[in-house]
């Protein structure tokens, strides 16, 4: 991935599709808020003729049309095959994507687990009929119909890939790979002003995961299910970290640059960020002993999509073995299609533990925290995402 991604592709939809096929009764109903329950939206039952355009909202590196690297282009073959012209926009945090989806300008969105339920509950995405998507049959079973991509057994999207939030460290400052996240928490003062952390309330889960291992008496069982006391403990830990933070990151180009110049020497990162650093950068990534948080992304269809057929076509295309392999390898994550490993570079599927259900189960996937505790506790009320958001602002101060 090169620097030219700075010139983020504009997500302006130039032309809207001419006709919506009658079989799609994608009416946007008002939703009862609070619970990610069924929204009254109907899934499609059959597909019609492709419209002319499809607009996609996705993480950087998910919709590559050759503008960043002429050799990396899986949009063109799709356009040739289906006649659907793709416009795309990238985002930096799930919260940003949530705001953008509310504009109803996007037919397709690639959403992580901390976004999916919010999109479903607010009626921004439609149920997806997986029978209309032939590629779905090869998706790893351990990714299907999960809490973050389905509600009451109704699928809301197609799994794309999954990966972990890794610990990046400068090899000049760390002779050996750190084995614990304590280098960004309890021992972060050793690199005061050169520590980074992901700038989103969801990062609180990283602190909670650390506390799971180091303060077992708090009784945290799931970093996304925190009661008031547990959240307070995580906030205290993060406020301690705040004093040593150089900058928080959400713009991946800025964090890449900070690691390259040495202004940041340790902190969370993604594989794709490590991959995009210049080759001489003395930075490596590792999975510390406490485990990792991560993401499992889902391709979803906008409830008010004007091009539902093209949207279905994109979901089928991006989940097909070869394209799934191409896209996930480019981003640096494990593919979701069991056939994809045939197409990726040697060793890549092993590196990301693709298909390893056991490894996949060890990643704490981003999930939207809700009042109903996700770890099954019923005697307490858990803190929800809005409380996490408030807490995050206070941590940053």
């Amino acid at each position, binding site marked *: 991935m090169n620097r030219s991604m700075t010139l983020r592709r504009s997500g302006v939809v130039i032309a809207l599709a001419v006709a919506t096929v009658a079989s799609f009764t994608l009416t946007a109903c008002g939703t009862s808020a609070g619970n990610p329950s069924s929204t009254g939206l109907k899934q499609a039952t059959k597909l019609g003729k492709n419209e002319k355009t499809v607009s996609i909202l996705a993480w950087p590196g998910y919709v590559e049309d050759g503008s960043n690297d002429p050799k990396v282009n899986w949009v063109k073959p799709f356009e040739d095959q289906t006649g659907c012209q793709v416009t795309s926009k990238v985002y930096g945090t799930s*919260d*940003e994507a949530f705001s953008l989806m509310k504009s109803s300008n996007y037919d397709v969105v690639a959403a992580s687990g901390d976004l999916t339920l919010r999109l479903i509950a607010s009626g921004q995405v439609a149920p997806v009929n997986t029978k209309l998507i032939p590629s779905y049959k090869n998706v790893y079973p351990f990714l299907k119909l999960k809490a973050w991509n389905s509600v009451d057994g109704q699928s809301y999207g197609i799994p794309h890939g999954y990966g972990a939030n890794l610990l990046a460290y400068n090899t000049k400052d760390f002779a050996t790979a750190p084995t614990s996240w304590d280098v960004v928490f309890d021992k972060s003062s050793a690199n005061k*002003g050169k520590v980074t952390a992901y700038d989103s309330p969801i990062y609180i889960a990283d602190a909670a995961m650390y506390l799971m291992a180091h303060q077992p008496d708090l009784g945290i069982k799931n970093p996304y299910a925190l009661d008031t006391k547990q959240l307070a403990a995580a906030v205290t830990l993060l406020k301690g970290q705040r004093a040593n*933070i150089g900058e928080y990151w959400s713009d991946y180009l*800025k964090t890449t640059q900070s690691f390259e110049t040495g202004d940041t020497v340790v902190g969370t990162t993604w594989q794709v960020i490590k991959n995009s650093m210049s080759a001489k950068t003395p930075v490596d990534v590792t999975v510390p002993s406490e485990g990792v948080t991560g993401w499992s992304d889902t391709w979803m269809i906008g409830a008010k999509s004007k091009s539902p057929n093209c949207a279905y076509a994109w979901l089928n295309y991006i989940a097909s073995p070869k394209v799934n392999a191409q896209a996930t390898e480019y981003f640096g994550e494990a593919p979701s299609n069991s056939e994809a490993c045939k197409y990726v570079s040697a060793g890549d599927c092993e590196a990301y533990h693709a298909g390893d259900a056991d490894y996949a189960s060890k990643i704490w996937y981003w999930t939207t925290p809700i009042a109903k505790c996700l770890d099954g506790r019923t005697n307490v009320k858990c803190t929800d*995402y*809005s409380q996490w958001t*408030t807490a995050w*602002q206070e941590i940053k*101060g």
Partner: protein
Amino acid sequence: MSTESAEKMTNGSSHRASVFLHNHVRVRLALLLSAPLFWLVLVYIAALVALLVTAFWTVDSFTGIVRTDWTLDNVITVLTGSLYQAVTLRTVGIALLVTVVDIVIALPIAFFMAKVASARLQRVLVIAVLMPLWASYLVKAYAWRSVLSHDGIFQWIVQPFGGNTPGYGLPGAIIALSYLWLPYVILPIYAGLERVPNSLLEASGDLGASTWRTLRLIVLPLLWPAIIAGSIFSFSLTLGDYITINIVGGANQMLGNLVFTNVGAANNLPLASAIALIPILIIFVYLTVVRRTGALNSL
């Protein structure tokens, strides 16, 4: 139809129109004012009112949909929350510092431009001062990001003298913001100095006043409105900034960042609106204070 007769026709109709407008003063006034008034009322005031109103609404915490239930919660949160107080103090502090730094730098430069430099040099200097405004704000902020980096040019220059770059943080943000708004401070002060007659300075000198005394008793009082004008620019521009602090400010937040995260990340437009009231209030107070000094009258 020949071009000549077409011309005559347009001339005839435009003549009739101007006669009509000449005789109907109110119509003329309405036509003249409707466009700017439309802009002012709809685009500016309506947007502000919408902002004010939103501050008293609430948002569904899970779906992020704004609900029009009236509440004072947001305003109370913003007024009493320690986070908002701390960030407000920081923002005002930065804005004041940037203003002071800019005025201190701008005064000698403007004085040299207006009173010392030759007419030719004067023109060159005006262009030089204006030149940074031709470059994008973002490019300049990112340039400062690389200048202030630990392997940037700042470090390279000060290292031989035992210094260190301030890195990304509040000092970095103040440096970058001072740089960004400097032209807006130099120009009004320069224009103000241009209006100070040289004869006054000469008279003061002839009557035995020292240079310093002349500056203090003659130049400064005459220049005061211009300095105030410059300070309004740098102060208000800094107050609303959230991009520069993001790029060179390290982990620090200003009011603009809180508004930004509440609109973008937290999806809480009502709270963002409530926070946006703070800078409006501060500027209002600032302008009131300035008005009391009488500086605005002579602008």
